[in-house]
C-alpha cells in the first residue's frame, strides 16, 4: 500500500489558501516535538512560546516594530514576484537605504528642521531603488539572472556599510565600536504608542498594503505585471513591455526595503550599526510567499513571522532553549509551506500495483 501523487485536473483554490494554515499547524507540531525532546511539556511550552512575547503592551509594540519592516518589504517584493521578477536582494537594498538616509541624517540630523525625516525617507527609497536598479539593468541589457545578481549585491552592500561604519562614520565617542553617532532628535520617528518602542514608521506597513493592493488589483500597470506573471507569452502578445515589468518589479521591492532601512535607524536603533538588519530582507521573502503574494495575506504573515522572532527570546528566557529555535521554526514553516504547495496541483492517492507499474513505464 503506497501513497502516490496524482495530478489534479486544475489547481485547487481551497488548498491554495489552506496551505499556509496547514504549514503553520505542522510547524506547531514540530515545535512541540522539539519541546518534548528537550524535556519540556509540549503543549504548555508552545503556548508560552507564542503567547508570552505579546502578553504585554510593550511586547505588542515589539511585535509591531518587527512586523512592520517584514510586511513593508514583503509587499514590495510581492509586486515583483507576481510579475516573475525575483528580487532576492532586499537585504542589500535595506542597507543601501540606510547608507543614503544615514549619511544625510549624520550631516543634518542635528538641525531642528522638520524636513530631515522626510528627506531621510526619500533618500532611503532612492538608495534602495538605485541598488535594485543594478540587477534590473543587468537583466534588461545583458539578460543576467536577477536572482543571482540581486543576491550577490547583498554582500557588496553589506561591505559598504561595514566600510563606512568602521571608517568615516565611526562615532569618535564610541570606544572604537563600529557604530555611528546617535542620530539627532529630528532624524528620529516620534513614538506612536506610549510605553512601547513602536514609532510612527510602523504605519508605512499598512500604507504599503493598501497601495500595493490598489496597484495590483485596480491599476492597469498592476494588471500588466500580473499578466506577465502568469504567462510571459501572453504579456508579449498583448505588448506589455517586459523591461518595464522588470524595472517596476525590482524598484518596488527596492523602495520598500530602503524605507524599511530608514525606519530601523530612525526608529528602534537610533544609530547605524553594521548589523542594521537581522535578515529582514530574506525573512520578507518567506513572508511574501506565506502571505500568498497577496497584500492582506502578507500583513498577517508578517505578524506571524515577527512573533517567531520574538519567541526566540522567550525560548531562551522562559524555556531555557537556545534562541536559534526561532530560526528552526521559521525554516520549518517555509519547508512545510513549499511542501504543501505540491498539494495545490496534486492530490494524494493510495496507489495499487497498477499505478506503480504505470509510473515505471
Amino acid at each position, binding site marked *: 500500500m503506497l501513497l502516490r501523487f496524482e495530478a489534479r*485536473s486544475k489547481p485547487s483554490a481551497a488548498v491554495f489558501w489552506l496551505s499556509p494554515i496547514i504549514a503553520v499547524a505542522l510547524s506547531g507540531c514540530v515545535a512541540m516535538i522539539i519541546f518534548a525532546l528537550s524535556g519540556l511539556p509540549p503543549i504548555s511550552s508552545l503556548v508560552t512560546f507564542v503567547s508570552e512575547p505579546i502578553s504585554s503592551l510593550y511586547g505588542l509594540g515589539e511585535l509591531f516594530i518587527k512586523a512592520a519592516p517584514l510586511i513593508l518589504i514583503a509587499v514590495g517584493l510581492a509586486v515583483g514576484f507576481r510579475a516573475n521578477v525575483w528580487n532576492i536582494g532586499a537585504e542589500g537594498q535595506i542597507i543601501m537605504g540606510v547608507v543614503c538616509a544615514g549619511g544625510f541624517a549624520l550631516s543634518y540630523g542635528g538641525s531642528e528642521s522638520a524636513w530631515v525625516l522626510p528627506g531621510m525617507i526619500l533618500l532611503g527609497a532612492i538608495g534602495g531603488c538605485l541598488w535594485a536598479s543594478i540587477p534590473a539593468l543587468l537583466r534588461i541589457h545583458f539578460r543576467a539572472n536577477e536572482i543571482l545578481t540581486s543576491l550577490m549585491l547583498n554582500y557588496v552592500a553589506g561591505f559598504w556599510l561595514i566600510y563606512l561604519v568602521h571608517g568615516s562614520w565611526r562615532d569618535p565617542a564610541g570606544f572604537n565600536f563600529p557604530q555611528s553617532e546617535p542620530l539627532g532628535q529630528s532624524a528620529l520617528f516620534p513614538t506612536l504608542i506610549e510605553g512601547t518602542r513602536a514609532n510612527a514608521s510602523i504605519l508605512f506597513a499598512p500604507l504599503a498594503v493598501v497601495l500595493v493592493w490598489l496597484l495590483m488589483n485596480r491599476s492597469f500597470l498592476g494588471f500588466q505585471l500580473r499578466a506577465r506573471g502568469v504567462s510571459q*507569452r*501572453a504579456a508579449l*502578445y498583448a505588448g506589455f*513591455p517586459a523591461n518595464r515589468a522588470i524595472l517596476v518589479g525590482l524598484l518596488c521591492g527596492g523602495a520598500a526595503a530602503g524605507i524599511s532601512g530608514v525606519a530601523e535607524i530612525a526608529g528602534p536603533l537610533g544609530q547605524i550599526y553594521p548589523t542594521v538588519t537581522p535578515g529582514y530582507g530574506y525573512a520578507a521573502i518567506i513572508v511574501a510567499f506565506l502571505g500568498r503574494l497577496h497584500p492582506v495575506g502578507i500583513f498577517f504573515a508578517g505578524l506571524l513571522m515577527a512573533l517567531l522572532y520574538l519567541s526566540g527570546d522567550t525560548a531562551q528566557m522562559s524555556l531555557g532553549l537556545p534562541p536559534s529555535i526561532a530560526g528552526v521554526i521559521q525554516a520549518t514553516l517555509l519547508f512545510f509551506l513549499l511542501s504543501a504547495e505540491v498539494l495545490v496541483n496534486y492530490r494524494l492517492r493510495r496507489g495499487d500495483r497498477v499505478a506503480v507499474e504505470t509510473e515505471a513505464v
Partner: protein
Amino acid sequence: MVNETKSPPHRWRLELIGVSKRYSGVTANENINLRVAPGEIHGLVGENGAGKSTLMKIIYGIVRPDAGQILWNDKETTISSAAVAQKLGIGMVLQHFALFDTLTAAENIALGLSGRPSLDWVVDQVKVVGQRYALPIDPMQHVYTMSVGERQRIEILRALLQSPQLLILDEPTSVLTPKAIERLFDTLRVLASEGCSIIYISHKLGEVQALCDRVTVLRRGRVVHNCKAAEESRESLAVMMIGDDPPVLQEKEPPQSTKKLVEVEGVSIRFDDPFATPLENISFTVREGEILGIAGVAGNGQQELFSVLSGEIEKPDSGTLRMVGRNVAGMNPFKRRRLGVNTLPDDRMGRGAVGMMPLHWNLLLTNNDRSHVRYGFIRFGQVMESTEKCISQFNVIAPGVDAKAENLSGGNLQKFLIGREILQEPKVLVVSQPTWGVDVGAAAAIHQILLDLSSRGCAIILISEELDELFQLSDRMAVMADGNLSAPVVRADFDLDSIGLAMAGKTADIPSQEATYASAI
C-alpha cells in the same frame, strides 16, 4: 459482418464491448462498441471532445474504463498499463513526437524499447524494417537535423520494432506534406496487408476515406456510426460527425478598394534559436477589405511571420513593414493595436488568452483603450460591459464574464477571442489557424465573422494549414515554405496541385502572380 478478411487466425484483433468512462460528471465515453479485424485499417473520426483520445488511452492502458469489456484476439483482457499494452502487441504513434533532439534516431528508438536492446541491433533493425516498410532514415543521424516527416518515421519505426499487432496513429498527417502523406499511406497499407491492424485517428475526412476500410464515428462520447469507408464520401462523414449539414458560406465579392493597408517589402530575419525558421525576403500587400490567405505546412515560418506582423518581434533584420500607412517596425503589439492592427495567434491558451484568468481580464489583455483604462486605472464597469457584449454578440457559451478562460471549450474560447479583437474594429487583422481544434459549427461561425469583418473594410491576413478554409475565405493566397513566401495568387487561379507543390517547397511551379493579379483587377 463476420470474417470479411481472408480466414484470419482470430476473428477480431480488438473488440470493445460497452466501454464507458466518466470524468467527474462529464461522460467521455458511453457504451462504446468497437471491433477491429486483423489487417484492417480502422478510421476513428469525431469532432474535438468527441471522446477519441480517451478511447485510445483506454486501449493503450493509460486510462482504465469504468465499465465494459476489452477483448484482445478474442480473449478478455485487462490492459492495466502501457507496458501491458505493449506486451500484448499494441503500438501507438502520438501526434506530438516524444523524441530527444540531441540523440540519434537509433538512440531514441532504443530508449523506447523494453528489454535494453543493444544499439547495434537497433541500428540493424532500423535499416531492415525501414527498407521493408519504405521508412528510410539514417539511424545515426541526430534528431534535431531531421525534418518532421523523418521524425515521424522514427516514431513509427519505434512502434514497428516491437512487432505490433495493432498500431494506433493519432492525427499522424497534421505536420506532413501531401507527398509525405502518400508515403505514409503506402507504408500503412503494406503493414495492414501483413495482418497488422491499424486504428487511424484523424479529423481529415478525405484521408480517412482514402485510407481506411471501416470508419467509426464518435459524437459526444458515443459511437454514432460504423460504416465502410468506400461507401461513404467526405461530405457524408462530415454529416455523421456533426450530426447536421455543414453550413454553406456565400460567395465572396472581390474587394473593390485599392488602398493598401499592409505593405511588407523584403522582410528578412534570422534567429539565434536553431529551431526557428528564418524568414527570407518576404514581400506582400493586403488591400482594404481583402483576405490574404497564407498556406503552408506547419513550421515553415508561419509562426515567425505572425510574430513579425503582430509586433511580438518588433523589428525584422531588414525590409520595410508598413501598416495603415505607418511604418510599424519597432512598434510593440500594444502600439500597433492603437493604429488598428489586431492579431490573434493560434496558441490560444497561454498566449492569446491566460487560462487561469477570468474572461473580463482576458478581454482587457488586448482591449485596453481609453474606454477601458483611464488615468492608469481599470474601469471595471466598462470592461464587464464589453465582455458581456463580446459573449452575447459572438454566441460564446460561457457561465459568465468571470468564468476562467480555461473552462471554456476550444471553440467558445476562440469565438470569444476573435470577438475581443473584432469589437475593437481593427483595420488590419492577422489571424493564425482560427479554427484549429474548433468544432465544425463554431468554425463556420468564425468564418462568417471573418467574412463580415472584411466586408467592412478590414484587411485580413489568414495564416492556416487548412486548405478548405483558405479556399473558402481568401481573395488571394500565398504559400509559405522554408521561410519563403510565394507571390500571392488571385482567387480565380487557386489550384490545389500547384499549391500542394508550393507547400512541398517548390515555389517555382506557382504561376507568376503580380501579372495575374493586375490582369484580374
